[in-house]
């Protein structure tokens, strides 16, 4: 295959990726966008395989054993990926995305280490630029890998969501970055014998850095972190492109990297925080002092209700808004919730959903779940669209959400989430809050909403509560119809 042909094919693949991302920004074109992306990837892989089997310079053709290994790796990987994609529950999407990011990071690091090994074997002094590219690529790859693994574990709940705030952690991070730079310089100066070992040490340090960075970020910020890691995985691919001199990798990596960065930025804006604040501030860092100060106060009273009370309220309402949060995702309650709203709608009640931009653990998480439950996306409103409507709403039902409906974000400058736009549910006639217990939200912040006079708490597992609520409502509706 002529090298120019390969490059033109790569160009086409890059354009397909651009169109794919473009398509994904609107509902109407999203599916075509995904298809175009798939096509681009197939084209890239096919052309690369072709170039390996029949290169311009026949002497460089890959041997059958190599090809066999390649085919096996691709085949096995594709099958694993397909099975994962088919099996994953929609509620576990965030974990899946995080773990997939870690694969990209690991692959980028491996490619970097591998090409360094090849370089050492080929002999000769390394070129400065190439050396920098390899170290940078491995650095980003390793950070992406361990960062994504930690994000995955946090999202699964294997490790706690509270930020790990070590003393002098900024100094620690900085020293790790300098260590990596130092190792890169030392490896360059040290000659062939130390190049690979130093790179491996540097990889390890970068890995620790990645893990530490994400450990220091609280669970509430996970959507942004996942999106940032998405961006990193792009940069890692781009760095690999530099070291291999492959334009397709460079372009595609840069596309993913910068669009991921924008996505993170958009999300940070939705939370009224800067990206630096998310990455370096450690959510809940200042928050530690607040609950402590409030310990002296007498325990505040909450109004509790039961299934029947909640069902009556919902049946009597003309205008209902559902505010879903991560709790609904965890409990897989979206189908039952949808049935409740369908029942209410059939009775002439206006039922809508209000989605906070950072509800759930992934941006757009709630939209995906509600879509899975067949909720029409016209009934699903974004925060800006619906925040003014709460005043005219009879009943708001908050399912497993906490920080995104916390009034202290607006009126308590002491609160760590102060300044974040929230859904102003307390303006509605009544708020029914489904909650497991009185534990604080993911951000570790107490929620004054629970203590308001017009808030009724419905304690229990979200899934069970919603199911019981559904049964109660349908029973009553039948009674009334009869």
């Amino acid at each position: 295959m002529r090298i120019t042909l390969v490059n033109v094919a790569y160009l086409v693949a890059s354009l397909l990726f651009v169109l794919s991302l473009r398509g994904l920004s609107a509902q109407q074109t999203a599916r075509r966008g995904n298809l175009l992306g798939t096509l681009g990837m197939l084209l890239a892989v096919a052309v690369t395989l072709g170039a390996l089997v029949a290169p311009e310079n026949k002497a460089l053709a890959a041997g059958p054993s190599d090809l066999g290994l390649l085919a096996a790796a691709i085949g096995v990987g594709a099958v694993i990926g397909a099975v994962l994609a088919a099996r994953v529950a929609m509620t576990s999407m965030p974990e899946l995305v995080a773990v997939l990011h870690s694969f990209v990071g690991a692959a980028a690091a491996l490619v970097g280490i591998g090409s360094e090994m090849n370089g050492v074997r080929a002999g000769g002094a390394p070129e400065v630029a190439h050396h920098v590219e390899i170290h940078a690529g491995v650095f980003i790859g390793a950070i992406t890998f361990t960062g994504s693994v930690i994000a995955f574990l946090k999202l699964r709940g294997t490790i706690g969501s509270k930020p790990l705030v070590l003393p002098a952690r900024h100094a620690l991070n900085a020293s790790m970055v300098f260590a990596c730079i130092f190792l890169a310089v030392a490896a360059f100066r040290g000659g062939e014998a130390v190049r690979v070992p130093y790179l491996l040490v540097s990889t390890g340090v970068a890995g620790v850095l990645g893990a530490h960075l994400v450990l220091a970020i609280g669970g509430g910020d996970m959507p942004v972190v996942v999106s940032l890691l998405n961006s990193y995985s792009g940069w890692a691919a781009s760095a690999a492109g530099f070291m291999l001199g492959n334009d397709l990798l460079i372009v595609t990596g840069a596309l993913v990297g910068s669009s991921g960065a924008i996505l993170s930025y958009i999300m940070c804006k939705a939370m009224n925080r800067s990206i630096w604040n998310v990455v370096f501030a450690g959510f809940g860092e200042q928050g530690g002092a607040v609950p402590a100060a409030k310990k002296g106060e007498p325990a505040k009273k909450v109004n509790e209700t039961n299934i029947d009370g909640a069902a009556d309220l919902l049946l009597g309402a003309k205008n209902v808004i559902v505010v879903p949060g991560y709790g609904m995702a965890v409990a897989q309650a979206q189908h039952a919730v949808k049935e409740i709203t369908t029942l209410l709608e059939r009775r002439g009640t206006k039922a809508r959903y209000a989605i906070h931009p950072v509800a759930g653990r992934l941006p757009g998480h709630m939209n995906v779940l509600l879509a899975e439950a067949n909720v029409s996306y016209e009934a699903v409103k974004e925060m800006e669209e619906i925040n003014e409507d709460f005043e005219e709403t009879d009943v708001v039902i908050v399912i497993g959400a906490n920080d995104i409906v916390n009034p202290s974000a607006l009126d308590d400058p002491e609160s760590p989430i102060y300044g974040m736009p929230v859904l102003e549910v307390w303006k509605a006639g009544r708020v029914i809050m489904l909650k497991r217990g009185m534990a604080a939200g993911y951000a570790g912040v107490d929620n004054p909403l629970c203590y308001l006079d017009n808030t009724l708490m419905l304690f229990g597992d979200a899934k069970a509560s919603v199911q019981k609520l559904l049964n109660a409502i349908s029973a009553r509706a039948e009674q009334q119809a009869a």
Partner: protein
Amino acid sequence: MVEEVKAGANAVLAAEPASGAQKPGGSAKEAGGEAQVSIGVLKEIEPRERRVAATPASVGRLVKMGLAVILESGAGASAGFEDAAYAEAGARIVPKAADVFREADVITKVRPPGAHPETGEHEADQVRAGQKLISFLWPAQNKELVERLAKRKATVLAMDAVPRITRAQKLDALSAMANVNGYRAVIEAASHYGRLLGGQVTAAGRIKPAQVFIIGAGVAGLAAIGAARALGAMVKAFDTRPVVREQVTSMGAEFVPFEFQGETGEGQGGYAKEVSEAYLAAEQQLIAEHCRTSDIVISTALIPGKKAPELITSGAVVGMHRGSVIVDLAAEQGGNCALTERDRTVERYGVTIVGHTDLTSRMARQASELYAMTIVNLLDEIMGKKKTWELSLDDEIQRGMLVLLDGELKWPPPRPEIRGGAPAPAPKPPAHAHQKPEVPESPWPGRIGTALALAFLAPVGLFGSQELVQHLTVFLLACVVGWHLVWNVTPALHTPLMSVTNAISGIILIGGMLLAANGGGGGAPVAALLGAVAVLLASINVAGGFLVTQRMLRMFRK
């Protein structure tokens, strides 16, 4: 432009003698010459017009502002306001219109001046030189009338030309009338409909709620939505301007959107605009579909200064149920419905079509109250605390409404952004003084970024290879493309987008492949193995990412 600046200067000059003592009329601009500016109120001469430009309440306000009011006897009778009530509020009642023209400094009325149906005398001919006239005027349609008034050297302000800016809302007579109009349209429709509008379950059978379809969600349309909803009907509303969706849904109606090859009906200043023929055909079809399932259709679609678009074809009327009602609020501008007859109620194919143009007059009391208040607010703007007539040509509202200044044509007003060859006007802080100054963005992030970029690029240029520079070019361009790609993504698609970008970043697969295969070409065997592992991981990512995105997107549905 030059004259205008001069006139503006005169207007400012006029303010000075008045500010010191209670001695208006010191300047040449002041034709009144009396200590007190007098506002004249005429009885409308158009036979069907029942509104009046002042109510006893508004007269009270004017008197409190230090103005005299001269009212033609019987001016408010058809709107339900007695002469005695006006007199009690402080107006001087004069027997004839001629008396008002002779004595008042400012003439206020509702309709544009016209010829008296009995005597044939034209109101415009009775205006004195320098006299001020405030009324609806429609200067674009009534060129002849404007010329007639110009000959009389009158100063004329058109109530239909209030600029659509926030500050001018209290003067917005058109909106105030449209509001009443929309409400009355529902009442007219309900009276012809012959059934209840709200749904009920009664012992004598079930009553289905009426389906109301509103075309055009301007002020009249929104008012109609509110009135129809209040009567219990189910309401849908159509508008070509997608931005009004929120207003429609906030009134409790369902929005019927319309999209046609990227063309929207949004024109300048928030009004609808004229559109292409194919667009109109598609619009007519959509409207016909909705008419078929509606019991009441209220159409309010107007294009400023143009004939109203024909949106309801005769075919659409044929498709409607017998007993349905169409109220065409655009009847005065030719009607939105092909079968509308101006000022008449007709029945066509079993559908009642109301084409009356005097709906606001049918609510004369309410309409007069609102209109009179807009007049009071306008006079308050112009007269201010000084109680003298001081037109400010720098004021966007007053300039916008001004048609004639002492007979000189001032309409249409210059667009605010076009300042012609005149020297740049001095800044006018008072008008916008309440606006908070925007905090300028800190220049430092940009400067630091530029410095970093230079610090990075300079050595590349000095020491880098040709290849590296090429790669960098590609890289940076791709960054810019990526930067622009996703700004407009809808939040609902964040997860699919992220999952697709994730799949695409699996392109590292190619890197792994090159590495793995290069083992045969003299690379390190361990490196080939690492490459293979990289390929394995990246393949999981690619397959998993694309497939899960597909799965997700399949679930999104309308």
